[in-house]
Each structure stands twice: as C-alpha cells, then as structure tokens.
C-alpha cells in the first residue's frame, strides 16, 4: 500500500498498477482531466503537477513544492507526499493568484499547455521571494507553448512573483504538515497489482537486501528515463525498487577536498553545491533537460543508465569523479570512466547499485560546454569537459572527456597524451585538436552529422584555450540568455 495526499484528501492505494503514471492516475482514475498529455515523454510540460514534501532546514519544518512531469512519474513515488494538480488551485470559486496573472497577462491562447504552465508558475511562486527573470526562465524552460511566444507568460510570472497573497496552501500549511507526518513512511512499502510490484525501502541496507532478493528489479529513482520504457516503448516493468525515499542516498555533503553526492539526490539539489564549486557545471545543469526533470532526475540515474549522451558523465569524468557501488554489504569505489564499458554496458554487477558520487574539489582549470540545436532542454550533439593543470606554461595534467562522440561518455586519450607535458599554446592546441580525430569517430544522426560533431569538439578545445588565455574575449552566447 502507498499513501499520499491528493491535495487534501488522503489516498491509500492498495492495488494500483506500479506502471501507472501520475498523469494517467489523475485523468483516468480520479477524473481530473485538467492535467494534459502533450507528449508522454517529459518534453512538453503540459502534464506538469506539483508535489509537496516535508522539508526541514534552518528555517524549521515546511513543505517544499516542486514541479514535475506527471507523465514520467510512477504513482509509487508519491508515497508519503502531497500531489497538487491544476484543479486544486482555484479556491472557493476564486482563481489562484498565478491563474489570475495568466488571465490578466493574456498568457493563454489555445489553452492546452496552460495547466502545465500554471503549475510551473505555482511552484515558482512558492519558491520565490521576488520576481527574477532568470528564475522564471528556469521554471518555464520545460513548458512548451506553440501559440504565445512566451512573452505574456513571462509577464504573468513576474506578476505572480510580485503579488503573492496568502493562499489556501499557506493557510493550511500546519495542517498539511501534520497530515504528511502522519503518513510518513516508517518501513518498506509495496505497491502491487497482479504480478507487478514496486518496493519502496527507506534505508540503503534495505535496498541492498531487496535488490539481492530481486536482482531482476529495475531501480526507480527519478524515473525520467525509466518511465519512457513504459510510456514510449510500451514495455512492462514487473519489479521496481523506488530509491527516492532513502534519505541517506539523497544527501549532499561537502568536505575540504570533495563533494559526496548521494546517487538519489535530485539534479536540482546537486545544482547549488556543484555550481558553487564549478560554475560551468552549474551552467550545464541549468541547460540540462528542464526543471521538472531535474526535480526528479538524479545524478546517480544519469550515470546509471549509461547513455552516451547523458550530460553529467563527461563533466564528472573530467573532474576525476569516483562512484561508490554497493552490493549487499560490500562497497567498492570506481573511477567513473571505468564504469562505462560499451554502449549501455557498465561495470555494475547484478544487484549492485550506485550509492554515491565523489567529486573532487579545487580544479580551477575545469570548463564544460554543451552544444545543442536548442539552448534549453535539448540533448547535446556534443558535450565537452576540459580539466587541464598548467604549471609555468606547461600542461602537467589533462583530463578531457566528451559525450555524444562515442558509444559511451569517454576520455580523449590521444588528445590528453598530446597535451600532457606540452607547452600551453596555440600550436599544442592544434595538435590536440588533430588528435581528437584519432580519439573519436562519431556518428551522424538527426541531432548532428559526424563532421559537425568532430569539428565542434575541436572548436570547443580551441574555445577553452581562448577562455583561459584571453578571458576578455567573449565566447559564449549563453552569457546572453
């Protein structure tokens, strides 16, 4: 059984199919068709809902509201949380202030994307102190509108963040906190229907035991990739283990020389810590999918699914990150680049899972670049990360990694060999660029041709050189976003 609040109503679900998405649950099971399906792949935001979770910090106990894509969220991940959909905002016959702002700013035309925008704006309002164009962009980057061109929606965002009258969620907060506490999970939960099940453990030890017992299980973290197997490829996932309720695996700890990031930490939670240490990592995370996806998707998941076009692995590899793998009560630490063996093949053993990621601090020569057709929420044609150490004009160490250039995220060994020990100058860079052609024979696909991938990979190295040597020269259009 899983339990959650459907706005204010306690739902105890015993027999839902664990492959059921929150979108279909809302539309088909509880008769709330306000939330729309635009793509069922997490790319349009029409299905955006908000989930409230108990959160304790220095300000005390509160509810943290986050937007996410209902089409990619399995119902089991609602366990212990509050689900808010567009129908819940209008209160006592009055539109909510974000809804009113959308009306007043002429923010809807055909209206089909509108509920999703409203929910993104609602989450933005809940997480904002004042209007902030960058935050509004961030909040809305995962919502597509084909009609308006977005200007009036940004105006609505500004209005909604200027004018934040107390709403029903504020006035009921204490009550909601109490109700969430009352349903706070205390032991491993299970949702099953027929022969399909999803297990929801609370500790790493329980996860290890369960995974040992069900080696065929699929680990469900954010589900932003896994759910596509159900919604796009129409497969059935008979056994899942949801790791999103394991607090230990969501922790982000900072030490003098490293960050330790729990594998189940949401990408949006990783953002602050990583941006602080590596601004380029922050910039990349801002362009990584959408806020809805980053609120769900995890750093561990981005590594674990071993996609050749995942954006975080090249950066982590260039930084020399390590991962801690856990199986039963055995742990081992692995350099991240050694995790990826071939296309979607990893060094992970049966019943072994990524527990955390260790990111070294202090690499001042680190830079990262993402090249895609669309600036936001697009998969990279090429993702590049460079991390050179230069002593007295000579390159003493080089870690260069790319995504989108091979079957796995991969270091450019020939390129690194040319660089290490060479003087840091344009001639060396040209030699290193030439060596990239030995490192990679990229493919052509609908995102880019192999020729473009190779040339832009080389040009990114040239750009890296320019940025380090002549920082006054402008090199990034993203600075204008």
């Amino acid at each position, binding site marked *: 059984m899983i339990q959650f609040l459907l706005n204010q109503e306690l739902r105890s679900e015993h027999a839902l199919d664990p492959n059921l998405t929150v979108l279909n649950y809302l539309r088909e099971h509880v008769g709330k*068709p*306000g939330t*729309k399906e*635009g793509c*069922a*792949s997490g790319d*349009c935001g029409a299905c955006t809902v908000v989930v409230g979770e108990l959160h304790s910090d220095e300000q005390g106990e509160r509810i943290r509201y986050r937007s996410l894509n209902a089409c990619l969220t399995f119902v089991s991940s609602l366990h212990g949380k509050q689900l808010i*959909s*567009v*129908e819940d*905002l209008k209160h006592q016959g009055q539109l909510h202030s974000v*809804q*009113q702002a959308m*009306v*007043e700013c*002429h*923010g*809807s*035309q*055909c*209206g*089909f*994307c*509108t*509920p999703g925008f*409203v929910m993104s704006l609602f989450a933005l309002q809940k997480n904002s102190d004042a209007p902030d164009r960058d935050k*509004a*962009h961030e909040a*809305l980057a995962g919502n*597509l509108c*084909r*009609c*308006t*061109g*977005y*200007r*009036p*929606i940004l105006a609505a965002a500004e209005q909604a963040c200027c004018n934040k009258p107390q709403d029903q969620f504020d006035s009921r907060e204490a009550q909601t906190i109490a109700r969430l506490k009352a349903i706070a999970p205390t032991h491993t939960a299970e949702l099953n229907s027929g022969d399909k099940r999803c297990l929801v453990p609370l500790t790493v030890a329980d996860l290890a035991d369960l995974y040992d017992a069900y080696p065929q299980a699929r680990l469900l973290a954010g589900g932003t990739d896994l759910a596509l197997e159900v919604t*796009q490829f129409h497969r059935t996932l008979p056994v899942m283990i949801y790791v999103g309720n394991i607090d230990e695996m969501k922790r982000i700890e900072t030490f003098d020389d490293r960050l330790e990031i729990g594998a189940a930490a949401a990408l949006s939670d990783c953002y602050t810590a990583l941006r602080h240490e590596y601004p380029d990592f922050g910039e990349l995370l801002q362009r990584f999918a959408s806020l809805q996806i980053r609120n769900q998707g995890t750093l561990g998941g981005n590594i674990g699914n071993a996609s050749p076009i995942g954006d975080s692995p090249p950066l982590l590899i260039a930084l020399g990150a390590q991962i801690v793998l856990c199986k039963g009560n055995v742990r081992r630490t692995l350099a991240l680049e050694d995790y990826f063996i071939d296309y979607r093949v990893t060094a992970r053993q049966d019943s072994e899972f990524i527990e955390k990621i260790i990111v070294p601090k202090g690499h001042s020569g680190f830079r990262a670049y993402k*090249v895609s*057709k*669309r*600036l*936001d929420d697009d*998969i990279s*044609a090429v993702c590049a990360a460079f991390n050179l150490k230069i002593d007295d004009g000579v390159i003493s160490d080089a870690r260069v990694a790319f995504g989108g250039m091979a079957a796995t995220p991969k270091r450019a060994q020939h390129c690194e060999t040319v660089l290490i020990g060479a003087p840091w100058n344009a001639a060396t860079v040209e030699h290193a660029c030439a060596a990239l052609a030995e490192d990679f024979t990229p493919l052509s696909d*609908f*995102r880019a041709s192999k020729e*473009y991938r190779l*040339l*832009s990979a080389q*040009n*990114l190295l*040239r*750009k890296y050189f320019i940025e380090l040597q002549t920082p006054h020269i*402008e*090199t990034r*259009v993203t600075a*204008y*976003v």
Partner: protein
Amino acid sequence: MSNHHAVAKTQAELAELFSQDLTSGVGRSVKHDSAAKHVSGEAQYIDDRLEFPNQLHLYARLSDRAHAKILNIDTAPCYAFDGVRIVITHEDVPGLKDIGPLLPGDPLLAIDTVQFVGQVVLAVAARDLETARKAALAAVIEYEDLEPVLDVVEAYRNQHFVLDSHTHQRGDSATALAAAKHRIQGTLHIGGQEHFYLETQISSVMPTEDGGMIVYCSTQNPTEVQKLVAEVLDVSMNKIVVDMRRMGGGFGGKETQAASPACLCAVVARLTGQPTKMRLPRVEDMLMTGKRHPFYIEYDVGFDDSGRLHGIQLELAGNCGCSPDLSNSIVDRAMFHADNAYYLGDATVNGHRCKTNTASNTAYRGFGGPQGMVAIEEVMDAIARHLALDPLAVRKANYYGKTERNVTHYYQTVEHNLLEEMTAELEASSQYAERREAIRRYNAHSPILKKGLALTPVKFGISFTASFLNQAGALIHIYTDGSIHLNHGGTEMGQGLNTKVAQVVAEVFQVDIDRVQITATNTDKVPNTSPTAASSGADLNGKAAQNAAETIKQRLVEFAARHYAVSEADVAFHNGHVRVREQILSFESLIQQAYFAQVSLSSTGFYKTPKIFYDRSQARGRPFYYFAFGAACCEVIVDTLTGEYKMLRTDILHDVGASLNPAIDTGQVEGGFIQGMGWLTMEELVWNDKGKLMTNGPASYKIPAVADMPLDLRVKLVENRKNPEDTVFHSKAVGEPPFMLGIASWCAIKDAVASLGDYRHQPNIDAPATPERVLWGCEQMRKLGAAKAVEAETEMASL
C-alpha cells in the same frame, strides 16, 4: 413590483449608464473567452469529455515502409487479445475509401500499396488504448518493397509530380536577365515544419439514429469532416453532425488532416454500434500527418547597381509528399508571395508540385506564402552581398511603389501600400543605422562571437485563393431575458476568434460581452462552412455575425419606432441600454417588449468577400481583397566556433488595420513571429534513408522554448491605419502574416555569418539555420573571406 415605477425612478441613472462607453466591444483588449477556464483546467478538450459507456478506443497500425506493395494482411493475431472488438482494413469501409479533400490520393486505409512510413494500414478498436495498440502491432503485414522517391530535387528533376506545374509570368524575364548589368544564380533548400499543436489529433464519435453520427473532432474544418464522414459511411451529409468547441492548437494541421481519425472512428462506430474515440499519441501524430511543405528553390536574377531587380526567374519546387491534399493552392500561394514586398521586374515564377514518399504535406500557417517569401529574401541578401550594400537598402530599392511599379506578377495592383512608411518608422524606432554601426564595431573586436542585424518586410495577401471559399455564416438568438447565443462557422484554436466575433456582436447590440454566450462550432447550426484558415476567421465570420446581429437590431429598431411612435432615427443602442427619443430602457426590457410584440429574435447572417476574382488559366486577377503588412528587425549573436546563436532583440511593427482586440492581435503577432523564427532556426525535420521521420517527438524535434525568445522583444501595432477596405470594423487579418516576421531572424543569422567575409559573400545557409548549418556557413566564409576579413578588422581596429 411595478416596472413603470422602477423605470421612472432610475431614468437619470439609466441616462448616465447610456452615456458611458461599452468596455467590451470592438477595439478593446477583452480577455480570451476561455482564459479563466484554460488556467483552471476546466476548459474541456475532446479527450477530457466524460466517456460514453462501452466506448471503444482506436489505434492505427502504420506502414513501416516508404513505398511497398501490400501482399497480405493477417488480422487474426489481433483478436487473440482480450478486449479487442474489431479490426478494420480498407475492405471494411462502407462508402468511399478515399478522403482526399479536393482530389483523391488519401486512402483512409491503405489499398494495395503504401506510399509513406506512417500510412494507416489497419486499425484496431478495443476497450482501451493499450489493448488496441498491442493488438494492432500483432497484425502481420507482408510487403513487397518498391523504390521510394525521398528527395525533392530528384522528384523535381524527374518531374515526379502530384499535379501539373504552373507559371506566373510578366514580361520577358529571359531578355531582362540577359540585359541586366548584374546577374546571379543560386539555390536554396527550405525545410518543412511540424505543426506541433499541443493537443494531438483526436476524434470521438457517437452513433445516433438513422445511421447518423455525432462527431466530436478537433478540426479547423467541421464541414469537410462532416462531408468525409458521410462519404465513408455512404450516408447523406444531413445524417452527420460535427461539433467542435475548441482545439488545443491547429496552425493548419487540422484543416484536412483531422479527418482521418474522425472517419476511422465513424467506420468503427457504424460497424459496432459503439461510441469510438481515437487520440493519436504524439509520435504517431508526427508520423501520420503532413507538415509544412519543404521547398527547393532555384533563382536566376538580374539587377542594376542599386540592387533593383530587372528580371527574375524562380523555380519553386514544393515537396508535397505522396498526394495532392491542398498542395495545388499551397504552391500557388508560394508563387503569389515570391515577390513579398518587391516589384520583380520581368518575372517568370514556376511552381512545381513534387511527389515524394513521405506523409502528404498540408496547410501550415502562411500556406506556402512563407516559403515563397524566404526565397525572395534570400535573393535580396545575395544581391546585397554581391554589391556590398546594406541588405535593407536593397530591399527598400525594390519595394512596390504607390503609383508606379505597383502591379504584381499576377497583375493585382498593390493598393494602400504601407511598406515605405512602416519601414521608416521601424528603422527609426529600432535605431537600425546606429545599431548597424555598433555591430560593425563589435564584430571588429570580437573574434569568436559575431552579431548580425536584419530588417525584413512582410506583405501578405488576404483571401482564400480558391475564391468560392470566401464565404461565411452565423446564427444569433436572443432569449427573452436578453441573453445572446452566438454561433458561427469559424473554429476556435486559440487565436481568440470566438472572442473577436463576440466583441463584434456586443458592439452591434451595444451590450457587454458577458451577455454573449459563445458556443461550439456545429454543422447543424451553421452549414457549409469554409475552413478556419487563410487568416480569414474574423474577417469572414465577424462579418457574417455582424450581418446576423444587424438584422435583429434592425427588427428591434423598427419595433421600437412603431411601439413608441418615434422615427427609427430616434432609437439608439448604447452600453446595454436603448434610448427611444427621450426615454432610456435597458436592453433586456426592449427584448421582452419585442418578444411580446411577436418580433423574431433569431437570425442567420451571411457574408461573402467582395471585389476578388482570379483567372488561373491566365494567371491574372485580384486574388486578394487586401494586403496585410509588417516589418521586423532582429539582432542576433552567433558563436562562430559552434554555430550556436541567441536572439538579442526584435522590434516588430505590424499592421492589423483597426484592431478588433489589440491584446489578442499582439498575441498573434508575437506567437507568429516566434513560430516563424522556430521554423527557420531550430525546427529541423530529419528522415532516414528509408523514409522514416526520425525527429518524431519533442525530444528530437525542437520548437522554441522560453529561452529562445529574444532577450528584448518590442512589438507595436500600426496605429491609426484603418483598413481602407470595408472589412469588419476596418480590421485586418492577423493569423498568418506575422509568421513571416520570423524571416528577419534567419536573415540576421546570415548577416552575422557574412561578417566573417566582410559582408561580400552570401553564406549558403539553408533553412532551418541549425547551429550545424551556421557553422558550415562560418567555415565557408572563413575560407572565402579570411584574408579580407583580417584586413578589414585591422583597419577597423585602427580607427
């Protein structure tokens, strides 16, 4: 309560109210009628309707071959799935098997051959979508592959056409080209565009008595759906009712291609007697339905030292996909707009309708016009680079004149031409000249990032070029409480049509718009309607509704004059009230009195566009009632190492005549611009070598997102310029024209890239200008113009 007493007491107040202006009539920024429902989630789309008991869900099995003979279809495996009700192939269609809108070529279900990857071969109806899908995928279809044609150039060279080519000709272009001082040739590929309406195609059909059907369909063309459903069922049109409250976006994609799900559902509903729904999942929608026509262009142009055209020959080869659909009119409109704002001189414009084994391309905002305009804008840029002139100077040198050089290549005189004054205004307000200089300075000092600037005009012809379509109907009832029921033949797809038409009715009766109930477009209320397309929605339906309202109002005036024994001139409607000589009464009081006096309070309305005529056999006439004008100035910054770019600023000045609703019109202008920009920048359709569309979902096909908006967007509607023609309250159509403002973004990117070659060479950047194409353009410039660029930069730097 005595009415008389109440009236007597409030006569002064009534007079005060009467004297005030109506706040929700024509020209006011009234909110979209559904805005409050959109934001609350209460606005119902077809998939949100309560489902009928015993509802069936339909899933289509699509061809995975671009061109093949069907040897055998085995549907037996489908029935192994519990919950499957019926499987249909073409053999099960009771009536006509082809749903081509004007000409055959679009079989509802494939007959003997398949023509594209995504064509419907069979459909399965089951109790739920997932079962229908599994069952459909279990059918066994045997094919024998045939050679497909996938390349538009190959089709053009081999004259592999869906329809005959057509020519617009004025003068002798060959002689003019030979005599011109300068002459250049070039080619250009222009990509297609997926509509990406957020709501995918959907229909829900309910069988009724007498073999009839109620069809809920997300369509821009209810009458055509009605006709096609009747034809596939082999019943008369009066058995079929199509109801359409709102679409979650259309953009042309639901003009013809909404019919397929409706007809498939109707066939199943007929065969089973059960209500049937078909909603296309996104990928299936993108595979099954046609898109904007990609075009291949060849040009040969002669001009003088000022860049002014003397002669031009244009070949416009539209990729129509596998069938005619609306391609004849679409390629015609590309030809009609191959001049955009320019007097072409001696011109030959040839339009070709190429056949390829891809989904049949269809209407999309601008309807071929944008492709014709992109072609001539490419020519303008190429001339400017050739002569080392500012592209804007070349454009202005070629603008249509007001009294001479004002006849198009299809012999329509360009009247009421606003091009010159609007360009001057935008040039000033956007500080074009100053920014041009600032950009030159920036580029001289910025080796990696380069800025570009472009100002491009829009002149777009308004009217269906198939002249008979320029008609519309409306139906208005006033009930005894004074509330008004409005219905018309147009469809609401987000453009605010219903709001505008309601404003027209509110204006005529001088009542608040809240009194006007907007209702679903319905073929049994207003019959024989034209599609809501060609930007015509408000022009046609607004006029028809105005006509209906005026009819009733005239009856009311006559009644009041008779009843109160005054002259008709003594009866005036204003702000919810009626003044009869000295006395003022509320609108609803007059309605009640009229009802008791047995005055009809219901009327139809009708409108047809005047003045237009066109003889296609001579390629001469006046196909357009008037032209809408616009201009956009875009500034972009380009990364010459990766080809990535960001729009920095866009200034737009657009002509909507006397706006019916400035907020809605501004929304159309902004949204149209961004959609046009998307078409020409990031939206790339890619097919593999087997003819399968690889960019078949939003993960791979990227429409503009919020960060793609220009950092600084300044949109202004032209003020104090009523449409001189007698359109509805002298407004102008606004649906399509602003789409082509997006061309400025593409030209600005090319301008930035051209800076690498000191603006002396035209970079070959086909549309869409993806970062990849932009980088290849940069490489081309670096090779061509490296030496000169270095020289110029040094020179500039020393200044």
